[in-house]
């Protein structure tokens, strides 16, 4: 009798015990893009820590903790396909998040559809990805067209044409150039200097830019080559207006150069870490607390990805049914760190895109959108 009572009393405790939900992550942990991959992972890990630290998330009367199954796709489409296959059929995850490269994402998306496992992209910018009619593909971050639309509008208003480029000769760089060409029109585009990932000598591009008297130069690359390009441009005595990518709006970037060289440079930014917007500030503080450095836009996008994956599972009331989770995602409205996330019919979200500018004292300010304009120190 007593054992029966004990069992009956213990039963709810058993029911409320924690379950682990494996969530798939695809990213570049090694290879030439390992550096941006790290920021992506930082975002996922921060979200994982916060979710699990709160005891997990509740679905169907039970609490579930998140377990990340990370696969390194090394910027290779075949590896991406294998990783997706493994996550879907061996680890049997309900969702996959991440990826860095558009070409690899394009190999992962069809497999997501094959096995009804939603794939939520947090970094790849190729616009073609969401044009394939794949109901299981979602993208949290702005794609190239959206990024360049914001910037093109700003550039045209400032009269910064002809616009020249120094760009990576890969999907990120070429996509940016093509996007700006399309939006501004060929007549407003000046010299386009492409270079391969790993190249460091921009002298021939610098000379041509000077010869053409470019009004502004857009640098489509990451931090490391970016710091070299700016140094070489400024060392050559060029005072043209500089425009950069989101990688060039961080204090880490400032550490590579100095405020004098950066002053006046403008960049599009998915996430200005010091903006006085509360959701941004709160995230930046938490990120700095965990990693001891300034937050990066990739991390913010990935953090939001995992958070909304959890929200979708809760809304769908399941941690295993991919089709139901997919439907939940399609109808979801989530307030993320990067802004309000709502997917359109093609699975593309429309997060706000900012333009920030470097000030003389090494701080930044927000120039666009008009509603969020802020002074030096809040960018």
């Amino acid at each position, binding site marked *: 009798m007593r054992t029966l009572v004990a069992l009956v009393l213990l039963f709810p405790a058993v029911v409320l015990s924690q379950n682990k939900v494996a969530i798939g992550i695809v990213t570049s942990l*090694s*290879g*030439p893009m*390992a*550096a941006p991959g*790290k920021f992506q992972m930082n975002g996922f890990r921060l979200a994982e820590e916060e979710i699990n630290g709160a005891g997990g998330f509740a679905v169907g009367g039970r609490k579930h903790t998140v377990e990340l199954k990370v696969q390194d796709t090394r910027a290779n489409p075949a590896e991406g396909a294998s990783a997706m296959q493994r996550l879907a059929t061996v680890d049997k995850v309900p969702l996959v998040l991440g990826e860095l490269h558009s070409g690899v994402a394009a190999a992962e998306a069809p497999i997501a559809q094959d096995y009804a496992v939603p794939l939520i992209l947090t970094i790849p910018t190729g616009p073609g990805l969401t044009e394939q009619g794949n109901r299981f593909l979602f993208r949290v971050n702005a794609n190239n067209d959206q990024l360049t639309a914001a910037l093109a509008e700003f550039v045209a208003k400032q009269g910064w044409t002809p616009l020249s480029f120094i760009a990576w*000769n890969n999907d990120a760089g*070429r996509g940016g150039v093509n996007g700006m060409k399309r939006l501004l029109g060929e007549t407003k585009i000046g010299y*386009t*200097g*492409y*270079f*391969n*990932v*790993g*190249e*460091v*000598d921009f*002298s*021939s*591009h610098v*000379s*041509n830019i*000077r*010869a053409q008297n470019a009004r502004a130069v857009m640098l489509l690359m990451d931090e*490391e080559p970016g710091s*070299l390009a700016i140094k070489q441009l400024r*060392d*050559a*005595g060029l005072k043209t207006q500089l425009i950069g990518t989101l990688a060039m709006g961080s204090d880490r970037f400032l550490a*590579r150069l100095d405020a004098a060289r950066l002053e006046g440079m403008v960049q599009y930014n998915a996430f200005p870490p010091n903006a006085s917007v509360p959701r941004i500030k709160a995230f930046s503080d938490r990120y700095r607390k965990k990693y001891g450095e300034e937050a990066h836009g990739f991390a913010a996008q990935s953090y939001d990805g995992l958070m909304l994956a959890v929200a979708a599972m809760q809304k769908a009331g399941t941690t295993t049914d991919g089709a139901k989770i997919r439907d939940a995602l399609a109808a979801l409205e989530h307030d993320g760190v990067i802004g309000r996330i709502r997917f359109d019919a093609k699975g593309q979200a429309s997060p706000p895109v900012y333009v920030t500018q470097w000030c003389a004292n090494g701080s930044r300010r927000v120039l666009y959108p008009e509603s969020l304009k802020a002074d030096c120190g809040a960018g």
Partner: protein
Amino acid sequence: MLTSILEQTVNGLMAGSVYVLIALGMVLIYGVMHVLNFAHGVLFMLGGYVCHFIFTRVTGSYLLAIVLSMAVLAAIGIALERGVFRPLQGNLRNQVIASLGLILAIEHLVIAVWGPNALQFKVPATSALVPLGELRFPVQHLLVIAVTLTVVAALFIFLRRSKFGTAVRAASQDRQSAMVVGIPVERIDWITFALGTALAALGGALIGPLFLVFPQMGDAPMVKGLAGILLGGMGSVPGAVIGGLLIGVVESLSTLVLPTDYRDSVAFFIMVAILLVRPRGLFGVRVRGED
């Protein structure tokens, strides 16, 4: 237009000097041992990392760091010659595969130990800018040119005037006959390899402060340096210099007239075109035993 052409030519010569630095070590080793060491690029990179390490952790003297890193890489070079390239002598295909294996091992070892991010190599003594007409170059870049010229001159004197240098030339022209005459070809082999690797380290140590130190820093220069060597003539040191500089100049000038995303292709296209007309390269020598 003329100023643009002049400017780009100067840019090209500066860029080409980097290729020449890498090419010198490779052509020296090839000339004596007929070994094409593709791993030369990662040794160049390793030299940069070792120099950076010594400069930032051990001694604040740039000069000393350079010398020490050259010594370290020379030792590695001897080990590679003894352990890998000597046993594979004569087998081109296996040498190539082995050097590809070395590239994988060394490049990923560096990433595993130092991480994938680039390192900044700041040498305050040489970061000032020197104006040259409208262009400005960091002192470091002029140092690269000066050192390259000195090394080329030194190599020339060494190979032509010294007894050992003559032995090296003899061994590279006709190994069998050199052995018959009593020249210690095996000793020449590892000394040349050590010298070649030390030159690679010198290259990395000089280029590091000019740009950045990162795991892939030797990859593109190695291929360009190789193209330069082929263009100039496989066993020829002056050929490697002219070839490397020519590749740099062609690349820079091409940005004036062609779409820049084909800049790499132009250099290779020119190389193939010239080789079709002059298969030995511009200064190539016909070596006995080779076709």
